[in-house]
Structures are given as structure tokens and as C-alpha cells.
């Protein structure tokens, strides 16, 4: 809805669009309990919001003649799109959401503001909800949004689906934001679980939207959706065991969402259409290995290691290297995994990362070196901040008293 209004008003009137949408919703809240929900609620809301916006612009026009053209242009565009909206309630709104995403994820907007702006404008999240999701103060999020809206106005960031030439870069930026949104929700190490599930659901919804539009349904988009679905399918089984290192091993696989997994595998197939192999493809491939294994022992760890090899080529980050080492330890034994980890010992990022030390602890225990295990678990505990992770490590330490 906000997306439709923004299309009508232009991105520099995003603040006005937000206000009139909010007002239309409040009007609905006051009227619908008595009058019932209208035949086409979306068209009703857009009509009310549009009327408000026209009133505002007319009023402003008295003070600022430069607004005259905007108001006139807006009124003619509004008339056209509204008839379209009532003729086909579904499509135009989705197209508008797409435009909104491309606007919110524009490369001119600072990276850290893109997720918040997307959640606010496309997802309809309140400032309070965004703040809860990112464990930030409401005022900080509100300020960030004010700054970024000023930027939208000043730079006149376009509200449209980019042309073919710019599409790859612009789509990458949108996919990155959706990937981060998903991870923020999925990495359940902190924060309120309810809001975080909303993030996961919204990231999936928006990525799915991209797979349904001919301009954006490329292999990478399908790969990202596959990755999200295959991961999210395991959410249910994961909760309650947060922070467990080899938590997959102990998951009740009957709790995995089979239809979500099937959907994810379908999109993984669709992602294989071109030659392109992105990081999303590889991560989705890894998730698919886990999701299609009947049990932990049946997991194809060799396949996972080779996917991590390819991922490490694309993204040579210490975290990927750590995950690869874990996969190696499953495929070729704990001693082999420890050798891989030894090569990473001097990495400053991993030195501060509790999971690195916890992995060392786990593998040391597996080869029977309890003293080393206790030492590494102790180091991990000193670094872990989230409560579930601390409880997990304390249990591990209690099981491995130093000798």
C-alpha cells in the first residue's frame, strides 16, 4: 500500500505517503468495526489515503507554488492507477512492492540503513519492531530512517524496477539485503524470538515476490529463496537447543517442515538454469545436503566439504573456513578437522569467536584429549555473550573436568 502511494507521489514524498497510509489505516480501524470490511479493502484504503494526500498537497500548494505541478501530476497518475488497482487487486500492488524494494536497497543508501528502510516501507514494520529486531534503541532507528528519507529526497532516488543494464548490480543489492534480513532473523542468538520469526517470514515473502517477476527471477534469486526455505524448514527442530555446536546431530528430523523442504528443492532446481554459481547456490546446496539426509549419520559430508571448498573460493572469509573445517571433521574424522583448524589459529576474527574455540573443544574431546577440550571450552565460555550459548558451554565444561 505504501508502495503504491509512493509510486503515485514519487519517492521524495515518502514521508507524506507514510502519513496518509497511517491515517487511512486509522480510518479503517474506526469505521470497519461498524460498517464491515469493504469488498476490496486495498482499493478502499488506497482511495482514502489518496484523498488525504491530494488534500495535503492542495493545502501546501497555497504556500509553495512549486508543488503545483506535483499535485497535478499526482492527481492524473492516481486516477489512472486506481482504476487499474480496482480492476486487478493483486498485481499492481506486488509490482509496487518490487519498486519499493529497489528504492530502499539503492546503492546510494548506506548499507546499514537498507534493511531498516525495507522493513519499514515494504514490510510495514513499526519503528519499535525494527528496534526490537536489531536490539537497537527506537530513537536510533527513527533517526536512521529520518536521515535516509532525507537522502531519498535529495538524491531523487528512483522508484522503479531498474532497466536491463543496471539490473544485475541493483538486484544483487536487493538480494544482499534480503539475505541479511533472513540471517538476522534466523541467527537466533539474541533478541525476541517472535519478532525474529517475522523477519524470516518477511525475507522469504519478498524473495518469493522476486522469483515471480520476469525481470528479477534469475538463478541467484531462486538460489537465495532455496537457501532460506531449506534453512527455515528446520527452525522448529532447532529451537530450544540454541547455541549447540553440532546441534543438527540431535535434532528431531520429524519436526522438519517437509513441504518447505520440497519447495526449497524446487527452487534449487530452478536456480540451476544458467551457468552462474553464486554463494547463495553453494549455501543452498549445503542446506539441501542436510535437509535431504535421512539422519545425521547419512549426511553426505564429502559433498558438503566440496561445496564449502567452492564457497571458500568465492568468499574466503574465516567463518566459511571454520564451517568447512567442521565439515572436514565429519567427513574425514576429528583429527583431520583439528589440523584444518590449526591453520586458522592466527586469524584475529576467529580468535574472538566463541564457536571457533567451542569447535576446538568438541574435536579435542572426540580424539580423547580432555585437558585440551576443557581449555578450549573455557576460552569459548569467556567469549560467549548469549545466554543459550553460555548454558551449552557450561554443560560441556561440566562434562569435561580438567584432569
Amino acid at each position, binding site marked *: 500500500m505504501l508502495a503504491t502511494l509512493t509510486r503515485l507521489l514519487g519517492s521524495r514524498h515518502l514521508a507524506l505517503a507514510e502519513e496518509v497510509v497511517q491515517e487511512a*489505516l*486509522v480510518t*479503517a*480501524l*474506526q*469505521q*470497519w*468495526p*461498524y*460498517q*464491515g*470490511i469493504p469488498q476490496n479493502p486495498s482499493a478502499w484504503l488506497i482511495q482514502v489515503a489518496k484523498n488525504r494526500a491530494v488534500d495535503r498537497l492542495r493545502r501546501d500548494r497555497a504556500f509553495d507554488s512549486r508543488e503545483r505541478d506535483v499535485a497535478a501530476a499526482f492527481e492524473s497518475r492516481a486516477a489512472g492507477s486506481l482504476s487499474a488497482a480496482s480492476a486487478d487487486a493483486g498485481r499492481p500492488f506486488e509490482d509496487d512492492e518490487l519498486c519499493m524494494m529497489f528504492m530502499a536497497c539503492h546503492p546510494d543508501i548506506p548499507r546499514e540503513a537498507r534493511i531498516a528502510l525495507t522493513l519499514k516501507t515494504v514490510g*510495514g*514494520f*513499526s*519503528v*519499535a*519492531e525494527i528496534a526490537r529486531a536489531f536490539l537497537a534503541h527506537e530513537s536510533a532507528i527513527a533517526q536512521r530512517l529520518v536521515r535516509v528519507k532525507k537522502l531519498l529526497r535529495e538524491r531523487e532516488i528512483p522508484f522503479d524496477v531498474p532497466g536491463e543494464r543496471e539490473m544485475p548490480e541493483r538486484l544483487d543489492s536487493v538480494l544482499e539485503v534480503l539475505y541479511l534480513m533472513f540471517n538476522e532473523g534466523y541467527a537466533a542468538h539474541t533478541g525476541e524470538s517472535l519478532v525474529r520469526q517475522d523477519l524470516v517470514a518477511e525475507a522469504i515473502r519478498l524473495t518469493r515476490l522476486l522469483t515471480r517477476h520476469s525481470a528479477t527471477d534469475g538463478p541467484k534469486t531462486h538460489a537465495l529463496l532455496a537457501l532460506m526455505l531449506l534453512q527455515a524448514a528446520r527452525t522448529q527442530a532447532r529451537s530450544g537447543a540454541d547455541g549447540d555446536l553440532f546441534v543438527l546431530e540431535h535434532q528431531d528430523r520429524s519436526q522438519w517442515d517437509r513441504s518447505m523442504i520440497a519447495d526449497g528443492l524446487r527452487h534449487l532446481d530452478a536456480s540451476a538454469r544458467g551457468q552462474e554459481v553464486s554463494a547463495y547456490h553453494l549455501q543452498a546446496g549445503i542446506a539441501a545436503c542436510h535437509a535431504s539426509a535421512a539422519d545425521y549419520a547419512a549426511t553426505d559430508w564429502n559433498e558438503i566439504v566440496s561445496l564449502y571448498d567452492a564457497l571458500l573460493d568465492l568468499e574466503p572469509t574465516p567463518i566459511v573456513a571454520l564451517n568447512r573445517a567442521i565439515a572436514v571433521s565429519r567427513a574425514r574424522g576429528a583429527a583431520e578437522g583439528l589440523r584444518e583448524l590449526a591453520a586458522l589459529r592466527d586469524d584475529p576474527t576467529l580468535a574472538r569467536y566463541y564457536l571457533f574455540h567451542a569447535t576446538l573443544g568438541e574435536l579435542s574431546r572426540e580424539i580423547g584429549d580432555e585437558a585440551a577440550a576443557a581449555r578450549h571450552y573455557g576460552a569459548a565460555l569467556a567469549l560467549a555473550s548469549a545466554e543459550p550459548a553460555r548454558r551449552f558451554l557450561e554443560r560441556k565444561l561440566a562434562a569435561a573436568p580438567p584432569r
Partner: protein
Amino acid sequence: MPQYMLLLRDSGSFPPDMSPEEMQGIIQRYVSWRNKVASGGRKITGHKLKDREGRLLRGKVGAPVTKDGPFAEANEVIGGLYVVDARDYSEAQRLASDCPHLDFGTIEIREIEPVG
């Protein structure tokens, strides 16, 4: 079947900064409540009253006095009303008792005197 008027009074304000989902949730509760009443075979209609203006006639000459707002008793204005069929007061009260409006204000029940 006698008809009862449910006068819904509220202080005119929902919590600020509600998300669209929260608003939708509230609307849905009203819709469910009406469906429940209707599915029990009781006809129900609703009217939202305009917020901004109202007129009060007072005194022998009945000269109208226009005030800025609706006429509040203890800061509660009538936001709207329902007319619902019910056998008697106790049924009307039972139907009104799970109306979601009670989370936001009060409901006054009055029986409509039948004509003739």
C-alpha cells in the same frame, strides 16, 4: 424480536504507533464478533458516528449550540452504535459482553421501544 441499541463509548484513542498488523488484528476481532452474533441468528447492524462535530439542543427555546467536539460524559464519547436483535436484556448483555470494544471503552445497552 426486540431490538437493542449498543452505544459504544470510548475515549477516542487507540494506542499510538500501532503497526498495520495490530490494526488488522483489532478489526478482525470485531468482524469475528459480529459473525458470531449473526451466526446465532441475531440480526446486527452498525453505524459509525462522525467524530468531529455534534449539536446539542438545550432549554425551552431549543436554540442549537454548536460545540467543537461530540458531547463527552467523563471524557467518553459515543463513537458508534450497533442495533442487535435479542430476546431480552440478559441476552443482549450476553451478546455484548464479548464485544472487543470493551477493551477500549464502555458499552451502554438500551432497548428500542417498538412502534405501536
